[in-house]
Structure formats: C-alpha cells, structure tokens
C-alpha cells in the first residue's frame, strides 16, 4: 500500500529522555488522521521531524513514498503545515504575511484572497497581525498552510485558542479538504472529542510511544457499551454465566457482560433469576471514546 506519511522506527532523544520512541506512522491518501496524546506525549516533536525542522535521532520519514532526507524540497512543495503556536511576522499585516510566503511558493496573487476568505479573515486582511486575537492568528496560520495548495496538510493543535464556533468552523473546513481537494490531513490534539467528528484514522501516542493506530471505527468498537449486573453474589453469578456460555468480567460488586442485544440480555437475566440469584440493577455502561483514550494513555503511564 502507498502511504502519504510513513515513518519507520522514528526516534528523538533529548538527553536521556526519548521524547519519541520507535514511532511507526502509516497514513493512506485522503485520510484525516487524528494524532492524539496527552501533553508532552511527543506529538509536536514527531511533527517537527515530519517537516524536517528537527533531525530524528534515528529512524526515517517517508512522505509521498519518498525519503524526506533526500527529497526535502520536492516533498515540502506539497506540504502545508502549522506547528504549535501560529507563526507570523508581527510587523506585517495578514495580507503581507501571506505575500512573504507567496514570493517563495510562487502561486498567483488571487490565491491569497481565496485562502483569507476560506478562513474568514478577509475583513482583517490589512491589519497588522500583532493586534490579532489568538483565534485570528490561528486562522491566518491555516490560511498560510493552505496557500500553496498542498496535498498534505499537517496541523499541530489547530483548534488551540479558538472559540466553540471557531472550532466548529474549522472542523467543517478540514472535513471537506479530502473530498474537495484530495488533501490528506494530519491533525494533532490532546482531546479526542476535538477530532472524533472528522478523523477517519486515529493514532494515539503516549510517552513517545505509539500505543494505538487504526480506523476510528476500530476505536469505536473498543468503546462499545457493556451491561453491568448488580447482584447479591458476583462470584457465583460469574461462575454461573461461564457455565451458561457467556463471557463475563467481575467488577467491584457487579458482573459485566459485553453483549447489549436486547434478546440476549433478557435471556441472561431470566437464566440468572431461575438460578436463584437476586438481581438488584441492570445497567448499561457506555464508555465514551474519550474514556477509552484516557484509559489507553493512563495504562501506558503506569507502566
């Protein structure tokens, strides 16, 4: 399979600490890749290496199937990026900031108006960026990243500093990029909820290690709901359920079963009652994706 982004054993060491440790990213074309991890997990460090801003201690980066080390210019022509806080020249206006970039990437002038409109900054185009709010700077950063019509867009926490309506707008904007323009998007965040409505693939990094990488559906499957039965004697119920042929886990004072099909739950309850157990509560527990994400990164932290 041809990947737009592919890293092999990508590692970055600061002193003794491995900020990124053997990370293998695989992103097919047209995906929106949610790159998730708590603060300090190594997202920004990874992204810096993807863009050649920082040299890996070991491992390699391939973008568009080409080694970044030997094809930097050719690759970067096709990549737009926004790393950490938005970058800008404070003494220039929004328009002038784009012009400084345009002179290097060489696109028609009209493209500047286009991207400013795309991020709804056309009214502030001639104001000095110094006086922009964080959200406006963030938008300008995205406009700059889109200026040369990249095929791969790498955004590091782009919703940082945006208000709720700004976040929704951004989501809408990003969501249409793959369909409309065939752009592949990498978007990092420390909140799953920020990307779960647009991401098609998710990578979770914690303490520098990639601990999960799959489609968002696969992640949802893990997050499937379960039924908790509060009973008088959880141990005995657990035994009985195993005899019945139903997998179950003992929790503190309840027994959890993975199935949520109405029929099955009904017959299991009936069976337990027939066996003489007292059932106090039948509760459905929905684990949110966010919970799964938290659990994933927590487990990693304990180790």
């Amino acid at each position, binding site marked *: 399979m041809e990947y737009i982004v592919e890293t092999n054993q990508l590692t970055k060491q600061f002193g003794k600490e491995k900020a990124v440790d053997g990370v293998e990213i695989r992103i097919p074309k047209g995906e929106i890749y949610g790159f998730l991890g708590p603060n300090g997990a190594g997202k920004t460090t990874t992204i*810096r290496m993807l*863009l*050649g*801003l*920082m*040299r890996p201690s070991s491992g390699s980066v391939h973008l568009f199937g080409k080694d970044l080390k030997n094809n*930097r*210019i*050719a690759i*970067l*022509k096709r*990549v737009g*990026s926004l*790393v*950490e*806080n*938005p*970058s*800008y*020249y*404070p*003494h*220039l206006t929004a328009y*002038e900031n784009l*012009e*400084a*970039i345009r*002179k*290097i*990437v*060489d696109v028609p002038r009209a493209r500047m108006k286009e991207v400013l409109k795309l991020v709804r900054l056309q009214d502030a185009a001639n104001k000095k960026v110094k006086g922009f709010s964080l959200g406006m700077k963030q938008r300008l950063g995205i406009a*700059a990243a889109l200026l040369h019509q990249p095929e791969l867009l790498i955004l590091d926490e782009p919703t940082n500093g945006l208000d709720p309506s700004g976040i929704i707008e951004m989501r809408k904007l990003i969501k249409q990029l793959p369909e409309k323009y065939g752009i592949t998007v990498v978007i990092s965040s420390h909140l799953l909820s920020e990307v779960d409505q647009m991401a098609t693939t998710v990578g979770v990094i914690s303490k520098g290690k990639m601990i999960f990488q799959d489609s968002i559906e696969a992640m949802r499957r893990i997050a499937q709901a379960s039924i908790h039965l509060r009973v008088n004697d959880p141990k005995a119920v657990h035994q009985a359920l195993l005899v019945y042929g139903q997998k179950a886990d003992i929790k503190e004072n309840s027994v959890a079963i993975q199935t949520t099909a109405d029929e099955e739950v009904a017959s299991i309850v009936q069976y337990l009652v027939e066996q003489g157990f007292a059932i106090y509560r039948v509760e459905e527990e929905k684990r949110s994706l966010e919970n799964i994400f938290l659990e994933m990164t927590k487990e990693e932290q304990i180790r």
Partner: protein
Amino acid sequence: MLSIMRSEWYKLRKSWVIWLLFIPPLIGLFLGQISMGDIGEANQWIIKLVMANATYALLFLPLITGVVAGFICRYEHQEGGWKQLLALPVTRGKVYLTKYILVLFLVLTMQLLYLGSMLILGAIQGITDPFPWEIVWRSILGGWVATSPLVALQLWMSMIFKNFAAPFSINVIFTLPSLLVINSERFGPYYPWGQPFLMMNIGGEGDNFFFIPWEQLLMVVGGSFIVFFFGGYLYFQRKAV
C-alpha cells in the same frame, strides 16, 4: 534563491530597520562638522575624512551592522518565523546565504550614504579642494570588505540567540577593544574588529589598492570571514526549530 531574496527583502523593507542605516552617516556628518582639525597645507577633504572615518569605522559601522544582522533574524525568532520559513520548500543554506547577502547589501548602502554625507559636509563647509575620489572609493570599498566577516559572526550569533540583547552585547564586547588594539603595532593588524578602521584609514599605507597589506587582507579579513561564515552556516544547517 531569487524568490527567497524577494521574500526577505519584502519582510525587511516593511520594517523600520532600514532607517537605522542613516544613523552612522548622520553622526559622521555631525562629527565632521564640529571637528576643527587644521593641518594647514593638505587637501581639506583628507583632513575631514581622516577625522570622520575614525569614529565611523571604529564604532558605528560595526555596531549598526550588528543591529541590522540582529533584526534580520529577530522577526524570525519572534513568533515562530523560523519554523514557518524552514517548512517551506527552501534549503537552509539558501536562507542563510540570502540573509547574509542582504545584510552585506545594507552595509554597502550605508557606506554609500556615508560617502554622501561627507560630500554634504564639504558643501556645507565650503571646501574647494578637489575631491579625492580615488582614495575615497578605496576606503569605502575597503571598509565594506573588512566588515564582511563581522557581518557573518553577527548573523551567526543572531541566529543562535532568540533575544536581541545577547548578540548585540557580544558585538559591543568585541568592538570596543578595537579602540585600543588598533594603536598596537603588534596586535592591531590581526584584530578583525579593527580592520574596518584600518581599511578606511586613508592616511595609512598607500602602496596597495586597499590601505592594508594584501597578506593582512587575506589572512585576517579572509581568514575570519571563512571561520565566521562557515561556522554560522554549519550551525544553521543543524539548528532545530
């Protein structure tokens, strides 16, 4: 390369840094105005220029050069400019070279402004002697050549330090001693920060095209240029942003 130059020039010309270039020539004009050296028979221009060149080349030329080099990096340091610039399809080598050439160009501009200020000075004071063009050109160009290694070092330092004061202080620390060092027969010729003065000192040795021996030009100016330029170049290649 040309496109990077256009972008750099655009960023620069939208800032007020360019106005700094007028300061040293204006100071030269002022100092020339108040200095009342009168050696009698010699060409009046030469007397004025010897006086004005000394302060200009010893102090203001290297100092303002450092400020300009600092500024050309400052707007990159300020709000993540480096990472935006270096994630564009540019090589670091070209970015470095462009910034270096741009500062050199500004220094040359400043030299020419200084020349202009001297002509104005003469007009104000009503000097009627013929203007010694040949000598003056040699000193203007010589001062420029002698500043080129200093520009490289200042650019290097400005790329390392995010804060503006650090490279400026380093510049001052090396510039001030040249006031003393140039008086030393033994060390003067070897001190890079003294070279702009020596190469603009029109009263100096007159046999060469420039006002210092060719060996000194090659060894001291050329040598320090190579060390400073490639030091900065290699540093920038590896800099993590």
